[in-house]
């Protein structure tokens, strides 16, 4: 088993210390940072996402793996920055205005980072203007919104409308999620995608990033 496979394996075990150590070792062996990221850390998180999707593992195991992923990223980040390795894309993320529930949103953020995305997490109770302004300023092609209350879901529509009003609908795509949010609602409000869980959200965001115009 090569070192990248061992990184993936230890990541699946949620062993953050070993992932950090093996990542350092891979760097010392001269492996390109991008390869360590893609074939070690992201590959491991990809397996985690698949296992989560089919209910072989659950939230605690996913989050232990994510912590291990971050331990590896801490070692790699300076090299990735130095070499100008681009992320998979930027995503602005937040729970909509009036909604204080952010665990689901946090999980999506963790999984997106695990898939190589740069996540700008605005937290909870985020006003529509802030979502759009941040996406513009950061040139993020995707806004992800979460709501757990039926009463706060309409805020998602406000964000979609604001994007249209500002003529940004070709540049900024939207994905919505949260317990009461379904694909039908996403379609009704004109959102570009619906993520039914964190793993699915990552898959949808990957598709959205490919659809935006630069």
């Amino acid at each position: 088993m090569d070192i990248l496979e061992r990184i993936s394996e230890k990541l699946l075990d949620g062993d953050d210390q070993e992932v950090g150590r093996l990542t350092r070792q891979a760097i010392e062996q001269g492996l390109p940072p991008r390869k360590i990221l893609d074939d070690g850390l992201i590959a491991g998180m990809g397996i985690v996402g698949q296992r989560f999707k089919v209910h072989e593992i659950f939230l605690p195991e996913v989050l232990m793996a994510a912590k291990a992923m971050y331990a590896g990223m801490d070692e790699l980040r300076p090299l990735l920055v130095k070499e100008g390795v681009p992320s998979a894309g930027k995503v602005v993320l937040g729970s909509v205005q009036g909604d204080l529930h952010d665990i689901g949103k946090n999980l999506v953020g963790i999984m997106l980072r695990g898939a190589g995305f740069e996540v700008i997490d605005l937290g909870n109770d985020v006003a529509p203007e802030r979502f759009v302004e941040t996406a513009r300023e950061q040139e993020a092609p995707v806004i992800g919104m979460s709501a757990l209350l039926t009463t706060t879901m309409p805020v998602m529509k406000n964000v979609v409308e604001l994007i249209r009003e500002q003529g940004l609908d070709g540049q900024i795509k939207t994905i919505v999620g949260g317990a009461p949010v379904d694909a039908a609602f996403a379609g009704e409000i004109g959102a570009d995608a619906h993520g039914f869980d964190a793993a699915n959200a990552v898959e949808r965001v990957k598709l959205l990033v490919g659809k935006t115009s630069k």
Partner: protein
Amino acid sequence: MTELMTFAADEVAPGREAVYELQGIPAGREVQGQAEALCTAALGLLSELAAPAGIIAEVSQAEFEAVYHGEGRNEASTPVGDIFNRAEHLALFAVTLGEEISREITERFRSNDFALGCMLDSVASAAADKLAELVESRFFGALRAEGKTTSGSGAMRYSPGYCGWHVSGQKKLFEVLRPERIGISLGPSFLMQPLKSVSGVIMAGPKEMHCFDDAYPFCERCETHDCRERIRALLGD
């Protein structure tokens, strides 16, 4: 009359099953290893950091009607709107676990300790529900002790932000109840601080008044439909 109350942290410690359910682990699934250890650690943090407190005030139907109508943003027809006129006793309530738990959850996420942060969030959510349940039981127990209930009486609680009662209803509720006295404040978007707080109304009266079909338009968007279980539990008392 308004009553302020405090509880020991251990009184609100939730069962592991409730916590695992919030973690998305199916009921009956054997939980061991990392997940079990995380749950144990989170329950320990709850015991150490929670400062459970509650406030409750009985109100008349007319007083509640004003609270319920709030900012005028409720759905046209809701369970609360359909039930409260039949309630014999109504009490506004708010409970909180205090600020320390929320701070700890935030800190765990900030330090990449996601799994424990998330588990603590689930433990605290389940504990806040248990605390609300304790306050409801205490209210109903007091009514019973005063001879104000019959064998057919029951109580259930409802909260703004759920079942068509718009979250902006918090504003009027806070004006009447003033939960600031137990450290809960309301933000401009009607969010409560500390986050692990629950507020609403407890409606006591004939159990049957709580029997509604989850067929309101907004029920289509509800994934939990936990009203069914709550009604079943009430009728099974």
